[in-house]
């Protein structure tokens, strides 16, 4: 496509960080502080001081953190389309609609998948620094030594040895969540963090309930939904979901592109 220029996409990314640098600085610093506080509070729970805090505990906190990143950061896409004045400026920037969409996707992906994991890691380091230097002296406890040091690679949820369908399902889910939140930002603006997650929950409920309904309609016995396998170890239900997730992801971007193209101010 001759409408795509890497240099214009980079300029659009520069524009995004220039116009919204206060927002990005606030979320980076805010996330850092929040993670430190939450981790410290979690460590202060007596049971953790007694039994220790391991990598798997970090992963649980990180999972919740990652969901929050998707909702509150990825979901704030196209911030320039929120007000009339900024919309005029953004839509009339000499760049194509596809470049503007790609720039938004790259910006959100880079913040969510590159910057924010580091922020989490630094937040944990900060909590460890505060915990070890201050709390040990204040509380005179040596139990902080039972807190494991966070290995950055443990934040990567996909591990070797997992079934390919698990990895595909996880990657598809992340892609779909990202794309749907970006699409949602064009419809719901600043209220995207409320409406789009609600729609997603509704979508999951409808998908699961309709599968069960179809299954009970077509089978005489109460067959477990996981017993129908299309590949070895891959239930039909999961396989269909994987396809839907990737398709949904592509469709979300497709609709997003057309929504941007037809945007009027």
């Amino acid at each position, binding site marked *: 496509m001759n409408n795509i220029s890497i240099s*214009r996409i980079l300029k659009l990314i520069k524009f995004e960080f*220039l116009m919204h640098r*206060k927002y990005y600085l606030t979320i980076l610093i805010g996330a850092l502080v929040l993670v430190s506080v939450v981790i410290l509070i979690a460590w202060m729970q007596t049971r953790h001081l007694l039994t220790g805090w391991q990598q798997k505990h970090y992963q649980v906190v990180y999972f919740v953190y990652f969901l929050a990143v998707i909702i509150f950061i990825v979901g704030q896409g196209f911030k320039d389309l929120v007000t009339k*004045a900024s919309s005029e400026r953004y839509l*009339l920037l000499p760049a194509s609609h596809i470049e503007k969409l790609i720039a938004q996707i790259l910006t959100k992906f880079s913040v969510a998948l590159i910057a924010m994991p580091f922020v989490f890691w630094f937040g944990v380091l900060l909590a460890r620094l505060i915990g070890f230097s201050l709390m040990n002296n204040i509380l005179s406890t040596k139990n902080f030594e039972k807190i494991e040091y966070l290995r950055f690679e443990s934040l990567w949820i996909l591990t070797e040895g997992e079934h390919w369908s698990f990895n595909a399902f996880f990657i598809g889910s992340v892609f779909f969540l990202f794309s749907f939140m970006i699409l949602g930002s064009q419809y719901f603006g600043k209220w995207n963090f409320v409406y789009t997650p609600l729609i997603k929950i509704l979508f999951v409920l409808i998908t699961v309930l309709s599968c069960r309904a179809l299954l009970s309609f077509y089978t005489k016995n109460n067959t477990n939904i996981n017993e129908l396998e299309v590949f070895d170890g891959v239930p039909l239900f999961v396989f269909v979901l994987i396809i839907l997730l990737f398709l949904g992801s592509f469709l979300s971007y497709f609709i997003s592109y057309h929504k941007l193209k*037809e945007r*009027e*101010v």
Partner: protein
Amino acid sequence: MLVSYYTMTVKQRDMISVKKLSFSYPKKPWLCEEMDLELSEGKIIGLLGLNGAGKSTLMRLMAGLLKPVSGEVSFEGGATFDRSIPFLNQMIFVPEKVSVPEFLKVKEYSSVYQDFYSGFDLDRFEKLLSEFQIIGNQRVSNLSYGQQKKLQIAIGLSTGAKLLLFDEPTNGLDIPSKSTFRRVLSGSLQEDQTMVISTHQVKDIENLVDQIIVLDEGKVKLHADLEELENQFVFSQGPQAPDQAVFVESHLLGAQYIVKQPYGERNSGGSPDLELLFNAVIAGKLAGEFLSTQNQATS
């Protein structure tokens, strides 16, 4: 000795073409229906009309911010609403209400336009900043509304765009700034550039524009080159208006009036009084197209 004469007809290139344009906002009355308009290059065009006549809407349609319900608005053959890169690179729209992120410095904000507009002239921009008395290292938050508007105008004039759309550019400017604006504009435009200024402050664009469009009730009531109007009409004032006056308005010293030039005569009544002209059009006394489409050359 053989002397030959020829007449050369030169029609200036149409930059913006509006064909059978109809537009309305959702659930609102039609703002224009089946409107036709051609804007040629190299002109400063004043777009006049009463409040709610559709001036800003037409500007937005030309800028590609609104989609026609039917008909088309095109720039050099391409629909403006497509917002193609060649069109956006050749067009700058300065809206009535400017909104510049206040935490940015002037130079940071202008760097956005420098990045995207390939024809951006930095020297010209700095000269304009100096004329408007704006310092490049200032934060936008330290600028008044009028200064922010001047900043946006300076950026608009520096992009090198062929089509400049200014919506109510003098709103919010003090009197000296309006003079600076007129002076800067009259010295800034290149031959292949077209500027459309939408305003209801007719006095602000007098002696600046060379073409006038008057919108009323969703239609183009008047589209005229001021030079052509000067050729065909006399705008004057006196104790009494002549009987054949096309339009008369009472005045402190008697009457202001518009009279059609008798055929073959050319009495210079001075530049058209835009306010009088506008009132005449709104009153339905003057309408139509008065465009200079022929140049004559002899050799």
